[in-house]
């Protein structure tokens, strides 16, 4: 029982990182109908920026600054490299984003250098003890709380602000939004900026308790099954998908010892297995809309 509860808590912690990444993918997808494979690079860029900013600014301010800077970087990349491709086949644009990912990562890797770079968070691997001997890692609590705050902010943004409303409208019918005077270009740019900022936070939290390295990229890869299982165009889907994948992954990691014939690393594969099972039952993901299939 203790193992179970601890795995679930860990799962929700790592799952909230997946949720943040997934939200970024979905925001870009809803605005532009493109899956951006550049998200992993922004995740890495954000974490590396934090390692540089934590000295002068401290962790929290550093994280906020890194999120803003990464958002700005993503906005610039969209404007320079993605916008000119609008109207090309979706596949072409997706490949362009893959190219962007590689380019940004090359630059960021140079910035990592040979040292061990840490994000300088206050939690490390410290734990809190709960009743019943259950231990919960502080970093996981921090991840969940941060994610919850960001989700609440996004909700308010999309529900109540003029710009958020314009983004929702443009996502539903671009031409009709244009006809009301919405600048669809600004919507594209903003979607990339938001996704970049979210990726920066996700990347930083993924590096908490360890160090920043190129292997963060593997975590970003997990966001793909997350969004496909949640439904490509659903923000709640990205959150629930992220939490579900995180939890299943941790549970498998904990209990795979009792199923030795599965081998030692099955938890890495579980996101894809979950995605596969969900798609069997619900071809558009848990919360996806049907129309998405036609795009």
């Amino acid at each position, binding site marked *: 029982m203790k193992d179970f509860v601890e795995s679930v808590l860990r799962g929700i912690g790592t799952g909230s990182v997946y949720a943040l990444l997934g939200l970024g993918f979905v925001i870009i997808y809803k605005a532009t109908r493109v899956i951006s494979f550049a998200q992993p690079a922004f995740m890495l860029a954000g974490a590396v920026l934090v390692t540089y900013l934590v000295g002068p600014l401290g962790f929290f301010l550093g994280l906020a600054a890194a999120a803003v800077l990464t958002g700005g970087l993503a906005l610039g990349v969209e404007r320079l490299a993605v916008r000119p491709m609008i109207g090309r086949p979706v596949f072409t644009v997706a490949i362009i984003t893959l190219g962007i990912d590689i380019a940004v990562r090359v630059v960021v890797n140079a910035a990592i250098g040979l040292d061990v770079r840490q994000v300088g968070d206050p939690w490390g691997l410290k734990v809190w003890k709960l009743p019943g001997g259950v231990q919960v890692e502080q970093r996981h609590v921090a991840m969940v709380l941060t994610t919850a705050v960001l989700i609440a902010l996004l909700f308010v943004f999309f529900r109540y602000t003029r710009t958020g*409303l314009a983004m929702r*409208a443009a996502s539903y*019918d671009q*031409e009709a939004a244009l*006809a009301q*005077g919405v*600048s669809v270009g600004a919507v594209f740019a903003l979607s990339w900026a938001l996704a970049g900022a979210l990726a920066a936070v996700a990347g930083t939290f993924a590096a908490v308790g360890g160090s920043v390295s190129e292997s963060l990229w593997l975590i970003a890869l997990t966001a793909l099954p997350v969004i496909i299982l949640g439904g490509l165009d659903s923000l709640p889907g990205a959150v629930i998908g992220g939490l579900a994948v995180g939890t299943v992954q941790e549970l498998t990691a904990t209990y795979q010892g009792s199923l030795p014939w599965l081998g030692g690393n099955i938890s890495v594969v579980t996101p894809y297995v979950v995605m596969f099972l969900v798609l069997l039952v619900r071809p558009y993901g848990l919360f996806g809309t049907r129309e998405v299939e036609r795009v």
Partner: protein
Amino acid sequence: MLRVQNLEVVYDDVMLVLRGVSLQVPPGRIVALLGANGAGKTTLLRALSGLLGVHDGAITKGAVTLDEKPIHRLRPAAVVRRGVTQVMEGRRTFAELTVEENLRLGAHTRPKGRAEALERMYGLFPVLAQRRGSVAGYLSGGEQQMLAMGRALMSDPAYLLLDEPSLGLAPRLVEQVRDLIVQINRAGTGVLLVEQNATMALSIAEHGYVLETGKVVLDKPAAELLADDDIREFYLGRAERSFRDVKHYKRRKRWLS
């Protein structure tokens, strides 16, 4: 004055759809634009509102001016800001958003006057006030048309471009839409009314144009057009003889046949 001068529009670099169209909408007046399917009415409205780009269309000749200033190179948002707003064919309300959100979006270019404009719209369209919290996708066709018009009016345009507002509506609703257009116009908004329902359009318009395969073929006061034999035959279906040829005749809109 909203003026179209000798306008040529091409789709996909090759399809010449408007071939030198000229027309004008004086401020505060209703002008009707009639024409068979595919004549280029929607294309003309897109040229006015800056939406040609979305369809790979481009203006290759001529100009659109608003009070003598050219507006045909502006982006859609800039055109809306200058006071020309289009209600697209088929309503195109945002089905996933609520009625009120649809209206709020209409004021995207004018956030300051939003609350006041919202009250004005609820006064003009009491149905929308009742359903302000419900999702637009659940509205009936007539309500959607009102929502689309209300949304466009939220930007407080000097000129409203209406693309077939009566399309697919029952006769009583057509009358209601017609009365609303008159009311909107009385409040000072100029209206360019694209219609297949010629009787309805000409009954409220001051002037009318008939477009055929990208050219203006008739340009007369509405009362004269209404009395015109060709128009009567072609649009009102009084005679079985065709306007130009039988094929053309058959291209009339659904509800006339």
